[in-house]
């Protein structure tokens, strides 16, 4: 396999160009080249979604992308956020504030072993950002949460608390209108 240059924006920082193999999966790039080990390799088949990162599109939308089945070069020129990029940090790099989703997941004991948590945080973050652009009616909330988180697998079966925490965040942030 040949190498080719890869350049992307990772958690707000421009990275590269760096030569990486043309068939390198993104999860391996994050783990082995960037030491960003928060994105989890679960099934390796695109099913469990523990490995998802967020891609910020030029049109202002954001979406989840599975890194276990997507090559690193797919992300060339793109803006990518991983689980390590959500919290606020001080100058020394110490976390000073979690994002609202992370904080609520902690407060509600949403996860147990935490292996799936980065994926759930990213999915719920994408949902929050979507509703910030276009709020929904309260009657739609359960279905919208299901549509956003339903494809993520948690083997500790923490779904009820993940969903409950996400519901609280959407209401706290006033992203759900009466109706």
């Amino acid at each position, binding site marked *: *396999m040949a190498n*080719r240059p890869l350049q992307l924006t990772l958690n707000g920082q421009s990275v590269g160009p760096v030569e990486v193999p*043309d*068939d390198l*999966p993104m999860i391996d790039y994050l783990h082995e080249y960037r030491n960003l080990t928060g994105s989890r390799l679960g099934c390796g*088949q*695109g*099913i469990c979604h523990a490995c998802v990162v967020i891609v910020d599109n030029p049109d202002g939308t954001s979406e989840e992308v599975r890194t*276990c*089945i*997507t*090559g690193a*070069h*797919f992300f060339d020129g793109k803006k990518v956020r991983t689980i390590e990029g959500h919290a606020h940090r001080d100058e020394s790099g110490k976390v000073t504030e979690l994002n609202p989703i992370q904080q609520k997941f902690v407060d509600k004991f949403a996860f147990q072993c935490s292996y799936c948590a980065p994926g759930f945080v990213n999915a719920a973050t994408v949902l929050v950002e979507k509703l910030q652009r276009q709020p929904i009616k309260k009657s739609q909330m359960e279905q919208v949460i299901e549509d956003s988180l339903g494809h993520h697998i948690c083997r500790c079966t923490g779904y009820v608390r993940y969903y409950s925490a996400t519901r609280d965040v959407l209401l706290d942030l006033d992203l759900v209108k009466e109706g």
Partner: protein
Amino acid sequence: MKQLFPRLSLAVALAVPALLAQAADQKQIERGEYLARASDCMACHTAPGGAPFAGGQPIVSPFGTIYGTNITPDKEHGIGQYSDDEFFAAVTQGKRRDGANLYPAMPYTSYHLMSREDSDAIHAYLQTVEPINRAAPVTSLSFPFNVRLGLMGWNMLYGKDVQLAPADGKSEAWKRGQYMVDVLGHCGECHTPRGLPGAMQQDKRLTGGLLNGYLAPSLLADDLAARGWTHQDLSTFLKHGMSAQGTMFNEMFPVFHNSTVGLNDQDLAAMATFLLGDQPPQARTLAAVPTDKLSASAQRGRQHYLNVCAGCHGVEGEGKPHIAVAMQGNTTLRLEDSRNLVRVIEDGIGEQKFAGFEHMQPMPAFADKLSTEQLADLVNYLRQAWGGQPTELAVNQVEQLKADASAEHKAH
């Protein structure tokens, strides 16, 4: 005691023929169940999630949507009042009990050569399924196709068109396969092109047809062999829904569950014998194409493949068991017409469950993920690397295929 024996003898004499008749009936019913499966009656006469044979499956045609009818033994809405004669007329001539013509979505043009014995067996079986007292949705076609009388003319012109190829000098397996493929299986109804009035073009039998925007590929022996099919592969494909050439998908996927999975090995082998012939042509094998021999478009396509396909289909196109099919040897890549390849990439394929624990994971739809240029490059790579199809697709050709796909989505 003297009196008891004659009484017993009489009882036995009366009971044995009745038991034998019952056993014969049961045998006929079991045979009918098998033949109904071979004829894939379920495909049209069972709605998704609906009661078996209660009708309601929509069949989209260029003339409007036709709904499969209720063929349970219900006397009001089903075929409970049909005699064997009337059932045979419906199946082989498209004649309803009241004398009206059935729409030719009912493949009586293929079934017209079904034997009376087989028709009676299917009828006997259908009389044993649960009667459902519910009318199937009413078919509403645009004029003039909504005039059933007009179908008489259609039948005069096009009906009963399926003529079997001469079987002189063919093996018994070939003859059985012909009956399974051309009559019961009515494979030609999809795999034969249709002319403007919706009738199969008999001079182009099994050369491939279009169905809901997908190509039902040619089943001619030389074409199958050119796409790498062997007798064993075809039998395996029909029995398991998958083989080295890929999986059944789209309209062929329900055919597997409703029909071919339940056919016996002898009949499946016979179907393969008929399709490939008693002396099958040599299946074409393809050598791997080195990257530097690929066109510029295909080389760009290779990187798209590594980016979004290789995670499941393998860097070298080797596939992953129970996850995604191999690209090496894949039959869809070997089709000269790239319609199915473009459609699959655009639409994706839902999770597929096969027999036993076998399944394939869902393939995502890439309609919003790849630009038309990227899609053209990817298709060119797949066709050149593993399809033996060096002809390049231009971006505007892919654009047209995408537009066709979009029109099909709207139609459905």
